[in-house]
């Protein structure tokens, strides 16, 4: 949920309750006020009628509401003595509407000329139903109006206020630690945002710094390892030429040499990876992928033949682009090696050109974990591989602005370079 909608939702819910309670109170207050004023009116009318009756006794003969809004009937002194004025709601048949309508009625007694009379005064009443309906709709409109105003104003003001925040968010979204670029911060008067910018700047600088030093560390460590590795390998090579060694010792020596050579390859791969990530290989030249791949395939043919793997090349299209040829070679050879290395013996590795991609496929039984295969030392279980081949491929592809995608379809692992 968006920050803006979040607060608006809260406002909407709270307003329903607040307005509801307020409407109830308001309704009863108003009703009370209306009754009050109606009763005052009735009282006043009663006085007028009584005064009129004192001047003109014919008024006392008013027995029906036809001529006015009152009736007067004689009553006994006993009844009159204990009588108090009463106001009540009742219904009365209205000629104009041909139905019963609610009226307010005042009943009272008065004395004139020794006799007691009962007087009933009526006044038409505001229809309560109508009042309720009116009130409800007024409140509804008020509610909608308020919500709309709040949403609009909220959006307007909040957006204005939160602008530095959203800008920062957008920039953070685009930020990538591998790319060597700084984040620009929006000038703001709001203290919290100033603090946020400052903290994020601090954090990012720290991360970039540690990322860089980590890269440098890997590169330096790899460099420093080269000489001791060279010394050990060469020493063993010289030692192996020693005729005094028994075949058994020779074999042991071979194993040590093999391990050291593996270490060398691993080291070289790490070095290559940090070099790619350190933005070397920036040269741009025309790369013709078809002959490049053909050449690399021919270099791998003996290796493949030894594993009883056939490499088939489908060159239906020509693909060219510009970039570093060295990187292109590294990318293709890693993918090809990976396919030859992991495919079961006796199967076929296919390299296929389509109009905007090159696919390397080999049969397999189950898909690989897409998230893991491109991470360091995650992709391989075979002891003979460095575990960096696909990581390097991914790094190269990113460096060359190509997309490297893995798919598993129809029992085949497919790595595709998309142009």
């Amino acid at each position: 949920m968006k920050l803006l909608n979040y607060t608006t939702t809260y406002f909407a819910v709270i307003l329903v309750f607040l307005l509801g309670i307020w409407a109830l109170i308001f309704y009863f207050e108003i009703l009370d006020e209306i009754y009050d004023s109606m009763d005052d009116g009735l009282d006043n009318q009663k006085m007028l009628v009584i005064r009129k009756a004192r001047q003109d006794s014919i008024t006392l003969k008013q027995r029906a509401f036809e001529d006015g809004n009152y009736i007067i009937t004689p009553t006994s002194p006993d009844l009159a003595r204990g009588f108090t004025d009463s106001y009540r709601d009742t219904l009365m048949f209205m000629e104009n509407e041909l139905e019963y309508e609610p009226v307010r009625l005042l009943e009272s007694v008065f004395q004139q000329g020794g006799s007691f009379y009962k007087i009933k005064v009526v006044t038409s009443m505001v229809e309560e139903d109508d009042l309720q309906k009116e009130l409800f709709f007024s409140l509804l409109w008020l509610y909608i109006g308020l919500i709309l105003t709040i949403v609009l104003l909220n959006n307007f003001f909040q957006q204005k206020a939160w602008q530095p925040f959203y800008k920062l968010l957008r920039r953070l979204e685009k930020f990538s630690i591998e790319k060597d670029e700084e984040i620009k911060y929006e000038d703001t008067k709001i203290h919290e945002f100033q603090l946020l910018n400052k903290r994020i700047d601090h954090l990012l600088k720290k991360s970039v710094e540690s990322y860089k030093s980590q890269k440098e560390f890997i590169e330096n460590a790899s460099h420093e390892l080269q000489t001791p590795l060279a010394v050990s390998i060469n020493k063993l090579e010289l030692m192996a030429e020693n005729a005094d060694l028994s075949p058994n010792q020779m074999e042991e020596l071979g194993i040590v040499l093999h391990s050291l050579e593996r270490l060398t390859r691993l080291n070289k791969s790490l070095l290559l990876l940090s070099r790619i990530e350190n933005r070397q290989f920036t040269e741009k030249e025309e790369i013709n992928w078809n002959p490049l791949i053909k050449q690399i395939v021919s270099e791998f043919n003996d290796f493949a033949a030894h594993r009883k793997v056939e490499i088939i090349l489908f060159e239906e299209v020509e693909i060219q682009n510009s970039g570093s040829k060295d990187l292109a070679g590294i990318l293709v050879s890693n993918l090809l090696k990976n396919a030859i290395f992991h495919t079961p013996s006796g199967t076929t590795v296919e390299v296929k050109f389509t109009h905007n991609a090159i696919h390397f496929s080999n049969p397999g039984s189950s898909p690989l974990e897409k998230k893991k295969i491109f991470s360091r030392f995650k992709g391989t279980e075979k002891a003979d591989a460095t575990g960096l081949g696909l990581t390097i491929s991914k790094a190269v592809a990113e460096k060359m602005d190509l997309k490297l995608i893995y798919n598993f379809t129809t029992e085949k692992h497919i790595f595709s370079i998309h142009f």
Partner: protein
Amino acid sequence: MKILIIEDEKDMRHNMQVTLEKEGFLVEPVASYQDAISKIGVYDYDCILLDITLPDGNGLEILKLLKEKGYSDSVIIVSAKDSLDDKVKGLELGADDYLPKPFHMAELHARVKAVLRRRKLNGSKLFEVSNVTIEIDSHLVKVNHRELELNRKEFDVLFYLCTNRDRLVSKSALAEHVWGDYIDQTDNFDFIYSQIKNLRKKLSDANAGIEIKAVYGIGYKLLVP
């Protein structure tokens, strides 16, 4: 043939000295920039193996000095810093080759010999071992003056082993040299065995006076029995 090794790492220097002396070269090792400068000033060398990172100076400066003074010594840069920049810079300054550490002894021999071969302007481009003659430029191999038909890989293997005659050549050294830049990412070099097998058969069919001996677990050795 005189070779100067400029390398600050003692064991590295020693290894290179031992292996090159075994190949019959006269080797002088020095450990520092200053020693190197004074040696170069006095003697002529056929080949200089030059480490770039020296404790008291940059190896590339030595190279610059050599070229400024017009010395004709061949220079092979030997560097642990396998960086493209250094390689390009070194070759631009006039180095003959660039060999990143770690390398195989067999590769060092091959590079040194290749550089020395190139120096001999009118020298023969022929390589002879026993009754086998290799014409380097035309990739021709003759046994007893009869041409031996080899494919490209077989030729490269044979030539590499001949350059390292009587020396142990490890499988990975051979694979990296013959099968190129990309193959070194593979970890299993058993595939070269079939090439060796074919080569052996062709050599023995032609009654060549050389023999490729397998050194179990490590590699091969070319012998003249």
